[in-house]
Every structure is written in C-alpha cells, then in structure tokens.
C-alpha cells in the first residue's frame, strides 16, 4: 500500500468534504482566527512593551533615592549627596529636579524637568513631542506657564525632542535649574530625588542597604526593581485584556467544542458509509485528523498574521481605548516587533493541537463502529 498516496487521497477527500459546507466552515475559521488574533495581539503587545522597557531603561540610574517625610515624598537636601558619595561602589550621584505640571487648557499632566546641561538660557523650554502636539493653538512659540504665585512665566519654545524618543519623552518640558526653582519656589539646596550610578551591578543591593542605614528617612529604588515592575505591569496588562476578551474566548470554546465534539447525525452516517465501503478505523481517524489540522492551521496562520499587522502596522488600534485610559498625552510610538519561535510555538500548541485533538477524539467512537451498521440502517 502506498502510504503517501493514501495520505493525499484522504486529505483530498477531507478537503472536498469540508468545502461542501463552505459557509459554515469559513465562519468557523474566521471566528477561530479572530480568537487567535486577539490572543496573539495581546502577546505581541505585552512582549514588545516589555522588551522596549527592558532595552530603553537599561541605562536608567541604578538607584533612585527618595526622601520620605511623614510617609510622603519630600524634597531631599543636596547635603545628602555627600553622604551617599562616600558609600563604596557609588560611581556618580546627582540630585534631580522634576515634578508635574497640570496644564488646564489641555487638561494634560506634564512632567517638568530641570536639565543641568540645558543648552538654551533662561526663559526657554524644550518640549516633548506629545506636549508640542497638544499646545493650544494661540500660544505660538511661547508657552505661558503658571508659577506658584499665580503669575505667568512666558517661556520660549526652542526645540522639540525627536519623535523617535517619544516613548520616554512625550510629556517632558525641559528647562534650566534656575527657571525650575523660580517656577515652583523650590529653595536652593534641595532636589526632588537623588540618582546614583553604581559601577558593579552586584553591589547595588549592598549600596541600597547602606543608604537606608546612613539615611534612615530615605528609601532607595533600584533599577532592577523598576524593570521588574515593568515586567509585572505588562504581564498584568496582557492578563487584563485576556480577562476582557475571555467572554469571546468562552463563546468560541463552546462553539468549537460543539462543532468538534458533537458529531452530527449526518457525519456519523457518513462515517458509517465510509466504514461500509471498506475504510478502516485508521482511515477515518486520519480524515478527522486532517480536518482538524486544516481548520486550525489556517485559523492559526490567519490570526497570527493579522495580529502582527494589527500591533505593528496598525498601532494596536483595537486596544487603543484600553491602553490610552484617560491619558490626554498618549505617546505616538511604533513598537519594536518581537516575534520568537518560542511564542509562536506556544500559540501553536494552545490553538492547533487542542482543536485537532477535539476533532479526532469524538469521531473515535463513530469510527470504531462495525462496518455492517450501514447495512442495518
């Protein structure tokens, strides 16, 4: 017996059998593909954001030191810098000055930072792309900023940060240290927090412990912890979307289960006829195997291709409402595609394999009926 010939003949028969119910099977493939699409969109998005955070924030300061006063963040005296610098292993330490600025005209919350190496003089600002996009039309090249005393400072807009860096810089307003202190009445000698770089990554936790000993009113936040946060956030995010679409998923599972497990009377009869015509049990199982493979493989491929296009060409437009939240300044960024053989095979084993098995198992009983059943029917 020619084995390859048998496989192909039975595959041919399976396909022309499936094509008999074009509408029904096409609908099944579409719904199935949609579920794969949602699932892989979530996976693509989650992995990409995670990767992005990992690679972009790789150069973030090793340790951020915040001062706590009565359990709340407070300005940190720059005199702490000297104490921190004495800790062995600390390469550099500097104070940051930053804060939030609520712009009532646009309703957006900006991050204002003082830049020590600010290239333009006082009364100038450099804006992130998102800020630039949302400027009220009347301001022109001057940005009025409301100071602590209710008066306005008119800042010259000198530059806009590149759109490539939008994922980290979209909401930034950069200015000189002097302007910052003036705008928010921050006294000399204090900063928002301290950032430290540590030469040897293995010493980071030791340094952090020493900081809490030397400066009991502070808390250190290490980079590893920040990155871990991002891992947690984006896994959680993926999980959240999965939870949202679990309704769709359940509906599909019920549909697929019903379709795949419940052999219709017609299918049962057809299997009986095939047995009567000399097909072996293994031939019938083979047919069902190909049926499951055909439906799920094409759904899988279609779903994963569409998801890739959706996330990386269409900027995740379907999930945008959930992602944006109430954010006014949603950054306009293109995610770096992340596709790995591991994730593709996980998706494959989550979709193709169970469906194929669910197709084969119920036909087993029908396939093992005696061939003479068809004579007695």
């Amino acid at each position, binding site marked *: 017996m020619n084995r390859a010939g048998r496989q192909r003949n039975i595959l041919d028969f399976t396909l022309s059998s499936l094509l008999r119910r074009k509408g029904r099977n096409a609908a099944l493939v579409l719904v199935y593909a949609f579920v794969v699409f949602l699932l892989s969109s979530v996976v693509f998005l989650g992995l990409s954001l995670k990767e992005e955070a990992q690679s972009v924030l790789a150069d973030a300061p090793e340790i951020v030191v915040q001062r706590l006063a009565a359990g709340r963040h407070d300005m940190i005296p720059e005199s702490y810098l000297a104490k921190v610098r004495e800790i062995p292993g600390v390469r550099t330490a500097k104070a940051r000055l930053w804060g939030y600025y609520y712009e009532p005209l646009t309703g957006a919350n900006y991050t204002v930072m003082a830049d020590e190496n600010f290239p333009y003089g006082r009364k100038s600002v450099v804006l992130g792309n998102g800020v630039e996009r949302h400027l009220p039309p009347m301001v022109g090249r001057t940005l009025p900023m409301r100071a602590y005393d209710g008066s306005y400072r008119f800042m010259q807009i000198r530059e806009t940060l590149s759109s490539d860096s939008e994922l980290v810089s*979209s*909401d930034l307003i950069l200015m000189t240290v002097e302007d910052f202190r003036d705008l928010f009445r921050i006294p000399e000698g204090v900063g928002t*927090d301290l950032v430290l770089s540590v030469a040897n990554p293995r010493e980071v936790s030791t340094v952090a412990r020493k900081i809490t000993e030397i400066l009991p009113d502070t808390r250190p936040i290490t980079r590893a912890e920040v990155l871990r946060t991002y891992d947690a956030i984006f896994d959680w995010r993926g999980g959240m979307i999965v939870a949202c679409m679990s309704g769709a998923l359940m509906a599909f599972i019920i549909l697929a289960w019903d379709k795949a497990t419940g052999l219709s009377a017609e299918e049962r009869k057809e299997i009986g006829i095939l047995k009567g015509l000399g097909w072996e049990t293994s031939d019938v199982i083979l047919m069902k195997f190909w049926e499951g493979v055909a439906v799920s493989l094409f759904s899988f*491929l279609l779903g994963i291709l569409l998801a890739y296009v959706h996330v990386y060409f269409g900027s995740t437009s379907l999930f945008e409402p959930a992602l944006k*939240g109430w954010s006014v300044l949603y950054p306009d960024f293109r995610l770096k595609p992340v596709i790995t053989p591991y994730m593709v095979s996980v998706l494959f084993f989550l979709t193709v394999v169970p469906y194929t098995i669910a197709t084969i198992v119920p036909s087993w009983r029908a396939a093992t009926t005696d061939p003479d059943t068809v004579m007695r029917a």
Partner: protein
Amino acid sequence: MMQCRESTAFFLSAAVGLALLLLLFAHAGWRERAGRKSLEEKREIVRALGLTDLCLFTEARYTRHPAMADRFTPFQDHPFSLEHFPSASLFRPPPHLSGP
C-alpha cells in the same frame, strides 16, 4: 480536465502561510536593526535625564511614574479618594514598594 488537487492547494496555501510567518521574523529583525538609532536616542535621553519610566499613561502622577509611586500614592490627596483611572487598574505599583 484534471484541475488542481485539493491537497496541492492545501499544501501550497499552508506553505504560503508559513512563508508569510517567516517573513514576520525577517520583518521583526529588519525593524530591530532599523530601530537601533532611535533606541540609542531613547537611551541617550534616559541617561542624560536619569529617567525611570516609559511615558505611557500620563493621566496622574502615579500612573506616569509607577516606579516613583507606592501603594498609597493614589490616596494621598484624600484618604477616601477613589482611585479611578482606567490605566491604574491595569497596572500595580512596583512590588518593592507595596511590601512592608
């Protein structure tokens, strides 16, 4: 009179699908290389300013800089204030901050 066999069409379209899938890998690799410049830019700005977070959710202080927030930040303004931003329900404060 013999038209294309169904199985031939099946294998062809499966091969096309797999080829497209491989193309995705190629595309991802290409974008990775093409994106190196902008990645360098992002890293540069992170280095220069000592940034700690991605600018994804700007609706509140604690959603903009989750690394700088702790579990109680949303409630600092008022002990009974409800924490009500959608994105805040999507992520949690850093694990090291929510500990004892």
